[in-house]
């Protein structure tokens, strides 16, 4: 503790997950997430890990479901195309109550796209790319340090609610190197009486997501909705920067939050009162972060054609005061570029 190491995002995340007691990893190589399975493969012998490179992301997402069903901490890491393949299993894990952790490292889509930074999978991660009424917690770090801390929280939150949790990263966060103080080792400490372990000494456990008539299936869904309502009520996370006196509020998460912080600094130096709302939980969307900011002008900046901006518009009282600026293709705007956009708003 206290010692800092200069680590790549993916590597720091993998090491932090291992320290959280996640001994099981099933993954398929895909840029920009491959360093995570590579790290697990390298450390498997030394740390007593189980690493399997599954044949497809479809298989890997179902493998983590299986290990999660036995009550063990387990993770996969992927990028857009692989995350798309895993959506049926996301729906399944949420329905069956399987606490696996999914790391999604965004890159520009749609389709194969590029392997640079993007935030174009917000809708998919946050609204849920799988079918049916379900939700998953989505946590979005903005630094390698925060990624190390949040990935450990992911396992606890997944177990607390018996639901999969998504850690939403992007190519920039994954590949950049920063100084980090790695978190310590954590122990799993939760009720596992529901897990599939062989029914010695207890009633047998059955996990199925196949309905048995409308009455049973509606009750099943209402129970799920109750679970999601609890998450929504208790797990909003955000950080606000200089919002109290601000006239213009930037809204950004992940890599873009780092850019926005730079733009905010430039703006303040130029005498403009600019603040930043940085969502950390994207689901549940941190509605509380916007309390008291109803009269402000918002500039939402994302590496996409505009996805989180819709949730900002749903949250604030005057959606006509919500503006958007984004880049596509893998370009990450500079703080100066965002500062120009702030000036263009013409807010005094």
């Amino acid at each position, binding site marked *: 503790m206290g010692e800092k190491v200069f680590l790549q995002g993916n590597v720091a995340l993998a090491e932090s997950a291992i320290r959280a007691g996640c001994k*099981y990893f*099933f993954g398929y190589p895909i840029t920009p997430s491959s360093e995570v399975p590579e790290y697990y493969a390298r450390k498997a012998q030394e740390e007593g890990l*189980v690493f*399997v490179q*599954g*044949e*497809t992301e*479809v*298989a*890997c997402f*179902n*493998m*983590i*479901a*299986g*290990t*999660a*069903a*036995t009550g*063990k901490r*387990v993770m996969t890491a992927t990028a857009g195309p692989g995350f798309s393949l895993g959506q*049926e*299993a996301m729906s*399944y894990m949420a329905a*069956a109550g399987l606490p696996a952790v999914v790391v999604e490292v965004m890159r520009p889509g749609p389709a194969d796209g590029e392997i640079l930074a993007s935030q174009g999978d917000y809708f998919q991660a946050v609204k849920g790319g799988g079918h049916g009424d379900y939700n998953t917690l989505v946590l979005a770090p903005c630094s390698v340090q925060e990624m190390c801390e949040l990935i450990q929280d992911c396992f606890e939150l997944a177990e607390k609610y018996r639901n999969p949790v998504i850690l939403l990263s992007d190519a920039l966060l994954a590949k950049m190197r920063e100084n980090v103080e790695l978190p310590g080792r954590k122990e799993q400490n939760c009720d596992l009486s529901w897990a*599939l*372990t*062989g*029914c*010695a*000494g207890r009633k*047998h*456990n*059955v*996990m*199925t*997501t*196949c309905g*048995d008539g409308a009455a049973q299936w509606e009750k099943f869904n209402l129970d799920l909705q109750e679970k999601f309502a609890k998450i929504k009520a208790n797990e909003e996370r955000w950080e606000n920067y200089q919002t109290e006196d601000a006239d213009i509020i930037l809204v950004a998460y992940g890599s873009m939050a780092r850019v926005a912080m730079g733009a905010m600094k430039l703006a303040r130096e130029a005498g403009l009162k600019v603040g930043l709302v940085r969502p950390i939980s994207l689901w549940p969307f941190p509605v509380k972060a916007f309390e008291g900011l109803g009269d402000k002008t918002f500039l939402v900046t994302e590496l996409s054609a505009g996805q989180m901006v819709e949730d900002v518009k749903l949250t604030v009282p005057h959606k006509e005061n919500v503006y958007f600026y984004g880049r596509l293709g893998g370009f990450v705007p500079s703080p100066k570029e965002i500062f120009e956009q702030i000036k263009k708003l013409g807010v005094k």
Partner: protein
Amino acid sequence: MKTIYKRPEVFTDVNTSYCGGCGHGIVNKLIAELIDEMELREKGILVWPIGCSVYADKYYKMDAICALHGRAPALATGIKRSLPDKFVMVYQGDGDMVSEGMAEIMHAAVRAENFSVIFINNAIYGMTGGQMAPTTLLGQVTSTSPYGRAVASSGYPVNMAEIMANMPGVCYSERVTVNTPQRITATKKALKKAFELQFENKGLSFVEVLSPCPTGWGKKPIDAMKMVDEQLIPIYPLGAFKSPEEVPAK
């Protein structure tokens, strides 16, 4: 009175959802007998598919999970890698394994996963109402091959037991059926072998069971049993295609 046959202990009281005369029912019963005899109930996890046996998790007083369509071998990989000392059974039909889940079963074999796989081949998609399966016979009429399966549009039936036998990661592959009392006994023997093998660290054990599907084939149960002899066995011969004696432990 001496008990010659009693309903297996591990069974719940739930009435199965299978049609009268379905081979699933016979195989489910054999599995239950083996669970009782081999004392696997408290030591195992059953992995069920999407198909006619989708509700089988309700029939056994045993830990169980119903997988997504085709994914049972992947789910079972996650379970068995986590709990290598526990008994893990994968049970799939032809839609689940040979169509939706072809990658998953092949790669479970590639990785030589140490679990027992039971494949119920009735040459049709039963649960969804009788559509063509990859295992449907040439010329066989189904709801999606109303003029009979033709090679030009739908290719050839798939012989899974032979394919599995060719995989180094598979230590045992046999095809059996349940259309006579003797063959039911032989099926139980094959299942028992497959169940025992998963603890010898030799890889995947595979039993394909040709099953009558009276409803899907449009036949009375006894006639469906005859159809297994007359039409299925010529294409899907019975026998052991790989024996575990040939395979060393990993």
